[in-house]
């Protein structure tokens, strides 16, 4: 090789090297753009899903566009990776040569996110469907609707209605949060759920007779019962036996962590008259700070660790689920891990739980000790580890003291007495066994299920108006002005109809409750209390304060 040839080769190599540096610069620019949230990340479509993406890009472009914005798309996790089905899956069908299923369950997500799926299966969220055997269920399926379809009573102009679906409220209401039992249509006109298929631990059905009854379309695709699917309720019962729905929080098909971190995401279900957690959060100082500082909260961060990635304000996820600097950034998918009271039942219970996550209700200390595997104190300490990122331990402890006092006040002054009154009326046969067919049953339901919860949830998340005016004020009004008079009236009616003993037993409970010091003002008057309060206020704020007597 002569010198001139060498010179030419060197020049060529130098250009190549410069080009490689240009490539590096280009990659750096793209990386910076992605970090700053501008510019589109590279989408990797694996060969297994190329046909899906091409076709659905035309037929359902929204799904594909959404997916293209996901982390899945960048990591090469595409349609088939999640929707793939195996032989024997009851909802599997061949779709242009690929065996797929429509519904992606936590068992499917667990193929990659195994630990998360397992933790979620143990969570209270995954068991949200269990409440559907409660008063709420009876309300939706019987009181609001009907367990059987019934005939319409007059024509609907422009719409041929031959049957009224009595479970419509349950399907569109309760089950869209709590989760349906996803079902396939049966050849005999019924529906087939996991209860019929009895899937094994791998999600495969064990009842072949039920599989044989699946109704399919001409292409062999199983047909879903439209009441139970579409459904993203968090306690959904899936055909493979898994519980819950990851997309309840991680909306498909972009599965945006940013969205899951925002309270609006939880607000699909945690709102309204019976558990207005979303509204309570918005009223609290936490919510006020979040609205103001949301843009600085680094919601796009990879791990989003409190104390490292942000500390401006908390969201629902921050306190109940996300990782923080004191636990190594470990996220939990079981929100019950950090909750020390359950305010769901009429009387709040301390969250001392057994190995299965059930609350231990025994009063025997030895039995409690043997059964409890995770104490409420431990759960509270986990929450405190979050709180203390912004608050001192003494501040946090004093807050919990205020919260405990409010819950205990509600329990002792209204919940336990209310339950005792309803109990004696039922025990004495003064109420029918049917719920919600008597006014006092609605009164009691409003008291604990709506107002009582609002008061307790309000105190748990520092929303004073929900604690007081939407909460304890309405509880008290409902108790004194409706529950007590209605209970007394039932007792009087009973006496008038010859049930003196039953009436006497009920009155004894009512009177016993009202004779307690905390209720004495109602029967005996409380002029002295008023004077004492006025005097205390005048001492505190000066003579003539609040002359109108108005408050609130």
């Amino acid at each position, binding site marked *: 090789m002569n010198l001139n040839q*060498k010179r030419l080769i060197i020049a060529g190599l130098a250009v190549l090297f410069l080009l490689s540096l240009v490539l590096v610069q280009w990659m750096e620019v793209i990386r910076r753009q992605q970090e700053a949230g501008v510019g589109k990340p590279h989408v990797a479509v694996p060969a297994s899903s190329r046909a899906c993406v091409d076709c659905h890009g035309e037929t359902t472009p929204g799904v594909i566009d959404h997916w293209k914005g996901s982390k899945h798309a960048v990591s090469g996790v595409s349609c088939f990776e999640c929707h793939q089905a195996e032989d024997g899956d009851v909802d599997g069908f061949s779709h242009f040569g690929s065996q797929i299923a429509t519904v992606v369950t936590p068992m499917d997500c667990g193929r990659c996110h195994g630990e998360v799926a397992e933790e979620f299966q143990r969570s209270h969220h995954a068991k949200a469907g269990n409440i559907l055997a409660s008063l709420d269920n009876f309300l939706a399926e019987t009181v609001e609707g009907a367990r059987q379809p019934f005939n319409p009573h007059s024509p609907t102009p422009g719409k041929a209605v031959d049957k009224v679906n009595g479970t419509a409220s349950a399907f569109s209401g309760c089950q869209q949060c709590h989760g349906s039992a996803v079902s396939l249509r049966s050849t005999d006109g019924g529906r087939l759920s996991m209860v019929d298929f009895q899937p094994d631990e791998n999600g495969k059905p064990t009842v072949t007779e039920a599989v044989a009854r699946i109704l399919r379309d001409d292409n062999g695709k199983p047909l879903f019962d439209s009441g139970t699917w579409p459904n993203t309720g968090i306690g959904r019962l899936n055909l493979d036996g898994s519980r819950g729905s990851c997309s309840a929080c991680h909306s498909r098909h972009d599965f945006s962590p940013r969205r899951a971190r925002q309270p609006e995401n939880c607000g699909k279900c945690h709102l309204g008259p019976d558990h207005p957690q979303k509204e309570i959060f918005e009223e609290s100082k936490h919510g006020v700070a979040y609205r103001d500082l949301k843009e600085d909260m680094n919601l796009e961060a990879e791990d989003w660790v409190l104390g490292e990635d942000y500390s401006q304000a908390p969201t629902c996820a921050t306190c109940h689920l996300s990782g923080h600097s004191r636990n190594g950034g470990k996220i939990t998918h079981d929100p019950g891990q950090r909750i020390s009271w359950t305010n769901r039942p009429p009387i709040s219970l301390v969250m001392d739980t057994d190995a299965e996550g059930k609350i231990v209700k025994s009063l025997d200390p030895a039995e409690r000790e043997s059964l409890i595997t995770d104490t409420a104190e431990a759960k509270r300490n986990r929450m405190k580890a979050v709180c203390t990122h912004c608050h001192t331990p003494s501040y946090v402890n004093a807050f919990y003291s205020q919260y405990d006092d409010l819950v205990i006040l509600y329990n002792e002054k209204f919940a336990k007495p209310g339950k005792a009154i309803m109990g004696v009326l039922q025990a004495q046969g003064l109420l029918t066994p049917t719920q919600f067919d008597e006014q006092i049953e609605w009164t009691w339901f409003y008291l604990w299920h709506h107002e009582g919860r609002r008061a307790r949830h309000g105190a748990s998340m520092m929303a004073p108006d929900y604690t007081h005016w939407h909460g304890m004020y309405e509880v008290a009004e409902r108790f004194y002005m409706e529950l007590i008079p209605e209970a007394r009236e039932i007792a009087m009616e009973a006496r008038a109809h010859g049930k003196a003993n039953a009436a006497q037993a009920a009155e004894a409970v009512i009177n016993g409750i009202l004779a307690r010091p905390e209720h004495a003002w109602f029967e005996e008057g409380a002029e002295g209390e008023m004077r004492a309060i006025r005097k205390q206020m005048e001492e505190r704020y000066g003579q003539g304060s609040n002359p109108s007597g108005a408050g609130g």
Partner: protein
Amino acid sequence: MNRKSLALSRWLQERIPVSGEQLRELTNEPVPHHLKRWWFALGGTPAYLFVVLIATGISLAIYYQPAPTTAYESVRYITEEAAFGWFIRGLHKWAATLMIASVILHQMRVYFTGAYRKPRELNWMVGMAMLMTTLMLGFTGYSLVYEQLSFWGATVGANMAGSMPVVGGLLKQLMLGGAEYNARTLSRFFVLHAAALPVLLVLLIGVHISLIRLQGITEFEFEGEEPPKKHFNFFPDHLMTELMIGLVLMVVLSVLATVLPATLGPPADPLTTPEVIKPEWFFYVAFRWLKLFSGTFALLSTGFVVFIMFVWPFIDAWVRRRTRYAEASVWIGIVAVLAILGLTVWEALVAH
């Protein structure tokens, strides 16, 4: 030459009294003609990569923080956040990999061509010292990442050193700065990796090149080749060859750093031993050997092999003097290379 440049030349001559002639003589040593063959230029490759490693290493040291609480996070910062950090780290990683590979190739070339024989025995030993220093640089460098595998790799390495008879305890103590891996171990590795070992390597390179210059490059003649002239000029002919190799290396490094960038595993967790511990690829051979035999035997035999490698020129001379098998070294070399390759591939293929 115009008047101004003449004046400048004179000014420089007065302050640096070296004439152009002397300079030309110093740098323009005649290069044997066989160096026109590419594989004879492999000696310059590690030197070139070493320069790349120093440059990228200095850049990395700007951000790296050698303490257990900060090391992993600083490497993550370099990889994910610092401008061009991923590229610099990728270059450093691949330059190290290629440097070790080219050192091994260079040593194989020297071995199989018998270039270590009299009077170059000492330079072979200097080369062996350079190989050991390079391997130690690889070991300490990987440990600095402080990810789970690198932490456990370092721990296993220290324990291996510790199981050596007599000096093991002291050696492990020196490596870790205590009986166990502790808060001061990383800074020890960092000083070794970024200061002590590079300085040692620079000195060894100085000795290595000086001995080459003093003894001249081994001259080879090839069958069927009539050398028209025995030598060609270092400048600019051989320099251009080296420049070409350097540019090819730079392009290769750039491509490797972008296509296969340096990754970052889970952070070190001293309480959880990973199921599979693997060192860097260049230690696979020793790792497999250690797994095949009991600790002390494996260590002593490894030490013995390294010792034999160091003194090989003298053994070879003795064999050549005493026996008829003048080229026995070639066959021994082939067996050794196959053994090294076999053990390395074996370790790479198995999970445990």
